[in-house]
């Protein structure tokens, strides 16, 4: 019973921190944000604000002649480090590096467009590397939770994460665009990365008054993430099913 009270307290604190962060970011005014791409969890303002951090990194990469593929492989190598960190229980550092790998994924695409080196081959390589990078984080967490039921939740999240990407790729292969869904890639990175970091931070802050463990908050975040990721995969599957159905109707008639 006390375990659930602790988890409720941790969840309430996490929600509070996220609300404060979201409201603070909302105060930033960036023209064009209102009409730019956004989602339920990461609004256009937050996205635009975050991308402004990456401008100097992109500029430096251009100066140094770094190629987008090099950044993609760096992302892959860092993701493997993230898996090792998660597996060995270094959740805060792993969460932080996970956010960095997500940022590298943004920079490589921007760099490709800016240096006019975007190509179908590069996009394909990036997609393959992204799937490995996605999987590494969940594999690391699965190893970390190997002695608890959360192992299954980490695996459930891993499957959902791959299915979210697969449904879109398959739909596009059938000529149907599919950009719907609650949790796209940036949201997944943000939830998992900050979830890991806050989990450790709150534990250190609240101990010994509240007997939390390093992964107490993370277990709640991971469970929510696993459900939401799979909801997203189902959302996409249903959307594609309906859209393809509409295309088939005239032929049937």
């Amino acid at each position, binding site marked *: 019973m006390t375990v659930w009270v602790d988890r409720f307290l941790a969840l309430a604190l996490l929600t509070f921190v996220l609300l404060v962060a979201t409201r603070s970011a909302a105060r*930033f*005014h*960036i*023209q*064009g*944000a209102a009409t*730019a*791409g*956004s989602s339920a969890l990461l609004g*256009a*303002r937050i*996205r*635009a604000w*975050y*991308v*402004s*951090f*990456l*401008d*100097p*990194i992109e*500029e*430096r990469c251009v*100066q140094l002649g770094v190629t987008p593929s090099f950044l993609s492989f760096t992302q892959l190598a860092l993701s493997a480090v993230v898996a090792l960190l998660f597996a060995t*229980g*270094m*959740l*805060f*550092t792993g*969460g*932080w*590096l996970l956010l*960095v790998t997500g940022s590298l*994924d*943004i920079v*490589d*695409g*921007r760099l*490709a*467009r800016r240096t006019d080196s*975007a190509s179908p081959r590069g*996009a394909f390589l*990036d*997609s393959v590397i*992204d799937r490995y990078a996605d999987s590494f984080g969940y594999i690391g967490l699965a190893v970390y939770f190997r002695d608890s039921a959360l192992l299954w939740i980490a695996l459930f999240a891993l499957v959902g994460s791959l299915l979210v*990407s697969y449904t*879109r*790729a398959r739909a596009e292969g059938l000529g149907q665009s599919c*950009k719907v869904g609650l949790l*796209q*890639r*940036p949201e997944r990175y943000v939830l998992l990365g900050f979830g890991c*970091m806050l989990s*450790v*931070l709150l534990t*250190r*802050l609240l101990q010994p008054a509240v007997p939390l463990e390093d992964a107490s908050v993370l277990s709640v975040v991971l469970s929510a993430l696993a459900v939401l990721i799979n909801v997203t995969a189902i959302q996409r599957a249903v959307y594609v099913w309906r859209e393809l159905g509409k295309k088939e109707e005239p032929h049937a008639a």
Partner: protein
Amino acid sequence: MRPELRTRERQSWGTFLLFLGCGILLDRGSAAVAIPTLAAGVALLLSALLRKESTTEASEPRESDATILSAGAGTEQ
């Protein structure tokens, strides 16, 4: 590189190293050092960001950064 971008680059690297260093300390259980350092670093960063924001509002705004991010790497999300 423009001076403004150089300053922002230093901030980006500073943020990366701050969270990496404090993260390792936190993970190893040295909260007494890590949490005050992290809090001070984040306070410095926020004050720099708020300064930057006031200058951004005054200068020519950038359009469609969020569109670029929403496109991700231009590949599967």
